[in-house]
């Protein structure tokens, strides 16, 4: 019997232990992981500082692209006639310039359809929820910051839609809903017209609820979207909408997804008006006297809006000339072309093809538009106190298989003023998205297309050239021909945009909207081979790349999968696959 009791005791103990095992150790942790927070935490009705909401807004801003070495470490302009990539490996800008992409193999670095919609969704989520947050901070005339933040997100969303439209034409507009798993997402594309209208309406809507330039507290808010940024975007959108690619030169005339079904010159007027409105309304802006400094000085009078970069040596390291070591190491990623060099006029403003320009092929860098030296580095130029040797076998163009210039030129633009410095130092490298010179040239271009040359248009070009350091000349026309026709003026404006905005991601899309890509991008891209003999240099033009452009490339293909998965999605012309 004793033993029996013992057994019972043991049995009870073990059962109790087992019970404890199954019921114990609960409630030691939260039921769901609280570090993975939910929407009501991000947009909290008690967060009067908007800490979390601000972070979400930061993530929305993040979707603004930074153009520096954006396309697989190359500048998009290396896919135009202005430059080639120095990369020794296959790269996306070469594929872009060669048309080496299809609907089944889009190039994610430049045609990332899904990424834009990711940003659009985030912006929409922000727009829909920010009003919950009881922000205490106010702006402008004392209204709560909510409306400014909301409008900033709407700006980003509009900007992303514009990125889609200039690449793909009309795209599905999702409105103000962030779709859920249950939603039918077999959406058709909206027409180009609907997209442009949506973007412009949004921009007009938000204009008065954004902060105003100049921003007073630059150290904390130097990056925010302003009223002026919205109007600058509007100017650009309307300029694109008025351009031949969408306005009369559509690659598929009857197809509203590729442009306006009928051409209408009044769209040029809308574009000119938008630019004019900007010029007239926002007197804060002016051309910065020193061209080179636009890109490395913060909050200068020319910057309308920029994508935040950083204070670093990245641009110099990636694109600076090879042949330097230590902190001055450069990878020479970008090789500007002879085509671009030839596009710069002489210091007197005359094109080098003009027999009266004074151009000397044996001293081709002498007496040129000062912007040339601010844009490229050439053989014999001074950099880091050294005289660059980009001749064959020179220090900056060594033999062997190492990556180096393919054209004898290196990129100079965007870099700090290191001509006479011993070494690179940290430099501000923001990506300037809108600057005043663009608004001026937008106006000149649209006005010329709508009404032909006028003194105002001349004045724009003169202002730009004057700032660039071109001499006024006896006639005060800075090398411009007097009494130009509309066509001559168009050519002058196109070339001015090319050299003024080189490597600023304008030319690639300008060539498309002007429908000039089919000509320009089927011509060889040239470089210079320089052979040193004694103290002399022999120059020989060489073809470094043969691009190729096809009509269908005016618009990118929508990724094949997106078309197959969505029965209402229509592919762009020529891109069935």
């Amino acid at each position, binding site marked *: 019997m004793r033993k029996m009791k013992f057994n019972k005791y043991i049995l009870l103990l073990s059962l109790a232990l087992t019970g404890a095992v*199954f019921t114990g150790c609960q409630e030691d*942790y939260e039921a769901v*992981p609280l570090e*993975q927070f939910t929407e009501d935490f991000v947009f909290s009705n008690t967060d009067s500082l908007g800490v979390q909401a601000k972070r979400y807004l930061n993530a929305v801003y993040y979707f603004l692209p930074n153009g520096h070495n954006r396309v697989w470490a190359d500048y998009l302009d290396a896919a135009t006639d202005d430059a080639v990539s120095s990369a*020794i490996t296959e790269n996306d800008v070469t594929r872009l310039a*060669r048309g080496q992409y299809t609907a089944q193999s889009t190039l994610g670095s430049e045609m990332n359809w899904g990424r834009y919609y990711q940003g659009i969704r985030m912006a929409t989520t922000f727009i829909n929820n920010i009003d919950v947050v009881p922000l205490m901070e106010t702006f402008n005339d004392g209204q709560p910051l909510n409306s400014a933040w909301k409008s900033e997100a709407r700006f980003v969303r509009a900007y992303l839609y514009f990125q889609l439209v200039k690449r793909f034409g009309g795209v599905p507009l999702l409105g103000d809903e962030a*779709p859920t798993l249950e939603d039918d997402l077999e959406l058709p594309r909206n027409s180009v017209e609907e997209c442009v209208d949506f973007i412009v309406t949004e921009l007009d809507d938000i204009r008065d609820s954004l902060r105003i330039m100049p921003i007073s507290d630059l150290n904390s*808010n130097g990056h925010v979207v302003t009223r002026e940024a919205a109007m600058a975007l509007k100017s650009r959108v309307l300029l694109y909408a008025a351009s031949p690619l969408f306005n009369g030169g559509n690659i598929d005339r009857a197809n509203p997804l590729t442009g306006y079904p009928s051409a209408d010159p009044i769209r040029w007027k809308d574009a000119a008006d938008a630019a004019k409105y900007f010029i007239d309304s926002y007197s804060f802006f002016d051309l910065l006297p020193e061209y080179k400094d636009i890109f490395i000085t913060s909050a200068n009078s020319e910057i309308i809006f920029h994508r935040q970069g950083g204070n670093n040596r990245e641009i110099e390291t990636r694109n600076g000339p090879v042949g330097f070591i230590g902190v001055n190491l450069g990878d020479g990623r970008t090789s500007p072309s002879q085509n671009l060099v030839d596009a710069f006029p002489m210091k007197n403003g005359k094109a080098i093809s003009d027999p009266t320009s004074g151009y000397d092929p044996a001293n081709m860098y002498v007496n040129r538009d000062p912007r040339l030296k601010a844009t490229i580095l050439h053989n014999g130029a001074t950099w880091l106190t050294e005289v660059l040797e980009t001749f064959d076998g020179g220090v900056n163009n060594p033999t062997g298989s190492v990556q180096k210039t393919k054209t004898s030129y290196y990129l100079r633009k965007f870099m700090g003023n290191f001509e006479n410095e011993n070494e690179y130092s940290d430099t501000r490298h923001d990506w300037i998205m809108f600057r005043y010179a663009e608004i001026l040239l937008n106006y000149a271009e649209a006005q010329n297309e709508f009404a032909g040359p006028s003194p105002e248009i001349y004045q724009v070009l003169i202002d730009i050239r004057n700032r660039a350091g071109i001499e006024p000349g006896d006639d005060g026309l800075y090398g411009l021909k007097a009494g130009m026709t509309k066509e001559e003026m168009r050519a002058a404006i196109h070339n001015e945009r090319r050299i003024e905005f080189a490597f600023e991601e304008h030319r690639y899309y300008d060539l498309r909207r002007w429908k000039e890509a089919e000509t320009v991008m089927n011509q060889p891209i040239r470089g210079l081979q320089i052979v040193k003999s004694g103290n002399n240099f022999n120059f020989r033009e060489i073809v470094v790349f043969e691009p190729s452009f096809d009509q269908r490339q005016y618009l990118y293909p929508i990724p094949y999968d997106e078309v197959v998965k*969505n029965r209402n999605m229509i592919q762009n012309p020529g891109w069935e696959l």
Partner: protein
Amino acid sequence: MIRTRKYHSNMGFYANKDARHLRNYYLKTDIMFKFYRIANKHAALLLVMMLLVSFVQGQDVDQLMSIAESGIVTDNYGNPISNVTIHVKGQEKTFVTDQAGRFELDVEPGQVLVLSHPEYYTSKRKVKANDLSGGGFSVSLHDKYLKDPDQMDVLYGSMDKESFLGAASTIYTDQIASPLSSSVISSFAGRMAGLYVQQNSGFRSPNTTSNANNDLIGSVPVLGGGITSDNTMFSLNSRGMGPVVVVDGVQRELFSLDPENIESVSIQRDALSSIFLGMRSSRGVLLVTTKKPTDNQFQLSFTGRYGIQNSIRIPEPLSAYQHAYLLNEALQNDGNAPAYTYEDFEAFKNGTNLISHPNNNWYDILLEDNAPIQSYNLNVSGGGSVAKYYVSLGYFNQEGFFRTSGMNSYNTNMGIDRYIINSKLDVNITDELKLGVTIIGRIEEGNQPGSGYSGILDDIFRTPNGAYPVYNPDGSYGGNISFTNNLMSRTVNSGYISDESRDAIANIDLSYALDSYVKGLSFKAITNVSSQNKGAIERVKRSLVYEYKPGEDGEDGRYDPFGVLSSQNNNFVSVASARFWYSQAGFDYHTKIDKHNIEAGTHADINVVTSNYDLPQRPANIALRGRYNYDGKYFAEAAVTESYFNRYNEGDRWGTFYAFGLGWDVSRENFLKDVDWLNQFKLRAVYGKTGNGVDNSGYYVWRQTFRTAYFGDYSYPQGNNYTTGEGVVNNTLANPNISWEKGHKLNIGTDISLFNNRLQITGEYYRDNYFDLLQTRGRNVQLMGLGYPNENIGEKLFYGGELTVTYQDNIGDFNYFVTANWGQNSSEVLFVDEQHKPYEYNMVTGKPDAVRFGLTADGFFNSVDEIERSAVIGGFEIQPGDIKYKDLNNDGEINTFDFSPILGEKPLSYYGMTVGFNYKGVDFNVLLQGVYNREIYMGDNVFMAGFQGYGQSYGQAYSHMIERWTPETSETARFPRLAAGGNSYNMGPNGWLTSFWVESGDYLRVKDVYLAYTLPDVVCNQLLGGTKVKFFVSGQNLFTGSDVDLRDPEVEFRSYPLQRVLSTGINVKF
């Protein structure tokens, strides 16, 4: 010494008789243990020991004398073996040993005895005169290599093998312990039907990054997600699923257990075997049972092994001259300027200036040919009727093949040291209540060069021979703008990373016989607590490299520095930390009414795993099981499990899974009873509904959540000061309805045993239909702006068969066996919500699960004309010497519509065969292991295409590049024309696969060879005091035959290469 042995043999007998002897017994065994250990080192002390032993056991002398006239049969430890049949040759006379292993010795000198027992090799022994004259007659028998015990381990218990209805393949210690390796898995390949093992690396791959979730015991492998566990060298696959590892009744990965400690490993693949796993039951069970205190005799075993490893198949790089020559060709093919001049060629070729034109085969320079590997294990067990123990100490060491430098006071080579202590104590508290305590401690220490072994291997693989000199004339490390981190410096002068993991596992088993309440009822419970911590210390530095530029006209040159100089830093990384808490309890009931055998059981368990900072996961199960058999003839079994998992949405956390099986032993039927060549003919079938839900459930993915992004993506610098602006971003779209995957698993099998069990055949057929598989939906358009979640939509079928055939027999005492196994896994994708594809051959649905799609290669373009006439891929500049692809749909263009299956269409089949014999103390066995219907994709651009971009220059290329296409060799070329800096058109246009790079992955390896010699009884007994000594040599991966000739069929070049291991060892038992 024979007396001593007998003393041992009887010790347990006495202890059984009277528990009071226990204390005494412990005392004696302890003393003896110590002396035996000393004796091993100092043979001269044997005598002292003998005296002492006689002293402590003096009281038993009488007993010994009384059995002097009989013989005794023991195993290698000297434990008695009962039921040994002893046949006197040429006579009818047969003896059988009793419980104490004794038998009456009624024979004449000169007669030959044949001793046989199902678990031991048949042995012959001639009776000598002194056997009968007081010396005593003693024979020891040798364990069979292939074991076939009547009881088998199943999940959370054991059962009569006869009643088992599922599919199981089991191996035992001898098979497991043969390879000398850091992982016990290296012995699995080719041994068990139904388990496919692929080796991915020749060395463990230590994780030294912070907060890593893998590399932990207890984290269970995920299908398709690779294996996350302490196993980093192998992938395991059983019927298309990664099996769940259960060690001694607890779910955990513990692949770096000491093989000497493992009693058996079994892969059980049917639904009934795994159903108690509930939400993990879709996957097979890999059951590991470690050695237990088996009986109440003191026994000791020591094994020491030492071996040499060398790498199988190191790639052959091009010499610097060949590289330069072919790079020029590649550049010119693409219309680029050549990089090297004629003078460069000459300099590379003649080695005239090894600074400017070096030729370094990095494999030769940085890697040693041989590296040592060793292991030592000592285990002892013993005890009495009240308590038994088993204690094992193990040490393992493996060194890597990196060259080291005498300049360092520390080790930079790769290496692993492992210490395991495993102790078990079984206590019978009362006759009814038994308690088992297991404590396992493991310390694993690893080392690697500071620069990281995998990075070094990768760079050895990518750096051309002519890239830079190892040292400059002034002794500094060579390098240049592209190669900024000298490989020699990385190998011997980059400091070191040492990692350490510590595991502690404590286990309490409790079993309680409740016969006094209900006859046949018992209760058992297990509680297991374990923890693992893994950390790494990084003492890492980096040196500058210098490019030497000689001055003109013999002047002093210039040294240009590149790279980064960082002095040794000292950093601690907390790699992983995990706590495991597992508890299990259940009742078992069995009864026998006439010929009806009935068993029933309940089971409940909960497993709490807290890994790093994640909330604990808590899978739990409640289950019932019933077993029935009628007279060992008809069998039935059924089980149902209610399974819970806390990471699902509330209301979706419980699931029901069930399985049942039927069996029929036809040979027991009356009409076959008299067929004496048929020992067993069992037919059996199991069907069940299973689940797969714990390991693929994600982390609370039913909640729509956000995360903070501190730097980089989704953050935005603020204002003119670029103040960090953290971001908050959406996580993937939530799936509020997520649930476990489900399966309907059917297994039909047969066990046939013929000719007095000499020939045994086991065959299985299975058909596992998995549904509600987690996949993203087909219409996952990017307009959503967020990633789509996994949803329960897919359906796949896995089916196939396995076969095991074993034949064993003896000719006198020449015992031999052949055992072979084969398995095949076919599959079919039934539903994947596939987007529309215009052609049937584009579709995945209806094709095998492993199928991969790509373009079909059709030789090379040999002329521009041919290119112009052919369909091509848009945008590429194609040249003669490029691969021609087939336009399957004849639309004049090569695109994804020309995709068809190029890989994985055939059902993977694998096999193994072990042949062996035992003769007069010599054991020999050899394992052949192979796979067929396997294909590999040779997609490594560095290796297959060569000249990939590296830094600002071009990387390595290998000797097979000689066989590239050129206009002259267009007829015989094996590879396309050369290109520099990537040639995606040939290697995989637009990231597509092409059939050109598919090669057969079939192979046959001589996986394991083992030869041992055990000293004869005479020597052991008379000179070594009964200590059994065995010497052995073994070899792994001695020979490989494969279709693919450029690399090993299993291990790729970027990984640590597969090792051939030759080792020698000694085993001592008493």
